């Protein structure tokens, strides 16, 4: 599931699974885990560059949900709820371990070159272009990366992002603009210096 969308059927399925899970249905719970664990991991990776910590948090989040399932409300959107909860957990744990948020500085293990989801997309997008953007994304400060993930990759509304990240509307808008701006700057850089720089960077990572 590369592009998680929120079509009416997936919303319906989500709320069905959530209700079942609240009733104690393990199959439904497992289905929720299956659907969202990777997405949550991806989201966590935009907040902090610590794979093990994120995995722990995702795991803990699901355990907490299961043990509190009777008390949980009817989630309007599971994704939104999970993101919101995961973020708090990650920040709490990261603070406990007294670790600074490493700006998710880019390390070569963290991205891979994969063909995009379907044929049509592949035709329209130059692989180089996508590679450049994924490198540029990695270089963004954590908060900008996070907001890009939520807004453009997960298609959440500004109001939802506001609540998840605990920012006010103006800050959300500004951070978005800043993130887009620095993405563009980097891309311009690439364009100016040609692709050979990209190759050099790649070599640098590989060796």
């Amino acid at each position, binding site marked *: 599931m590369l592009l998680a969308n929120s079509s009416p059927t997936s919303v319906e399925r989500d709320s069905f699974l959530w209700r079942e899970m609240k009733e104690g249905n393990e199959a439904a719970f497992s289905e929720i885990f299956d659907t969202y664990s*990777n997405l949550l991991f991806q989201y966590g990776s*935009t907040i902090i560059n610590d794979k093990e910590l994120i995995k722990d948090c995702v795991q803990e989040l699901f355990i907490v949900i299961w043990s509190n399932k009777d008390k949980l409300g009817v989630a309007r959107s599971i994704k939104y709820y999970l993101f919101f909860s995961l973020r708090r957990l990650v920040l709490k744990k990261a603070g406990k371990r007294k670790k600074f948020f490493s700006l998710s500085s880019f390390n070569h293990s963290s991205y891979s070159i*994969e063909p*995009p989801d*379907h044929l049509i997309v592949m035709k329209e997008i130059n692989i180089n272009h996508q590679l450049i953007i*994924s490198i540029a994304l990695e270089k963004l400060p954590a908060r900008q990366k996070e907001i890009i*993930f939520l807004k453009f990759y997960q298609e959440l509304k500004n109001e939802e992002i506001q609540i998840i990240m605990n920012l006010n509307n103006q800050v959300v808008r500004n951070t978005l603009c800043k993130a*887009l701006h620095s993405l563009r700057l980097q891309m311009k850089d690439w364009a100016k210096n040609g692709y050979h720089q990209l190759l050099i960077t790649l070599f640098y990572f590989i060796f």
Partner: protein
Amino acid sequence: MKNYKDYTENEFVMDADFLEWVKHPSEESEVFWASFIKENPQKKEELYNAKKLLLSMVFKQNLLQSEKEAMWQEIRTAMRKQKEGKLVFMKTGRNSFSKMGMYVVAALLLGCVLFLSLYYFTEKKPEYVVTTQFAEIKKFLLPDSSFIILNANSNIKYSHQWNNVSDREVWIDGEAFFSVRHTKTNQKFIVHTNEADIEVLGTEFNVMERDEKIKVSLNSGSVKISVYDNANPVFLIPGDILELNAKKIQKGAGKVEDISVWKENKLVFDDTPLSEILKQLRYIYGWEFATVPNDVLNEKLTGEVETKDEKVLLKTLERALRIEITKQGNTIHISRLQPVL
């Protein structure tokens, strides 16, 4: 109406409707943006760049399947511990109930049991039917928590009364993927089709019954198939595919994951002739294929297509086979794309 004429590239990127079109194009939005470009050709580059940027934002940090499974195991362990913990809690909790409260609960329970048994003996067993429309996939759980994914244009019937003693039985028409739970009492799970019964304890398998043809493919566990009027049952092991056509049984091995990939809104072809592909599309969407050149029918295709969006699907086929597809209502016409020279 927003004044897109004055939008900058950034404003396009930030626009919710624009994003919706880029990520999930619909017929309506395609028409809207196509005509927008036609009327405002000077905006074409900004629009294209914005779209390119949005589509390129892909986050590729993924969990490995093994990592995911390990996490799930940990969660399961915690769940089991909680269960045990809760039982202890309930035992101590019960002491706080007053004796009077216990009597009230007992009386209520007795009432419930009486009512339910009365209902059970007087009512006929009602049947449940789950049906899907064309291009619709439904996921649901049976009373025993077995998970079913029902493909488009299909239905499953089952009786209302399930207990933990008797066989679990369902009747299928169309195609479904079954993830059957194994029960403590080793109850059988039986799928009835026109020509055979498929019997399992707890496994994952795909059943298709279309056009009097039955196809069963086994992903895990084991399956016993009893063809009607045939004394010898057939047993499948994971990876096996059984086809049944007019009492003729054919068993082979193949990529069973590809067969059940429809549950992710995809179809996988491996050197599959177009004639076979069109058949599958007829099952899923209910399309009729009016004119198809014979030589195209034999063309083979290998790869994966998404079935969620029929426009994307048809476009993909057009490009892959260099054909032209026109759709009027439910009728599809296919013609060879004439070479430009």
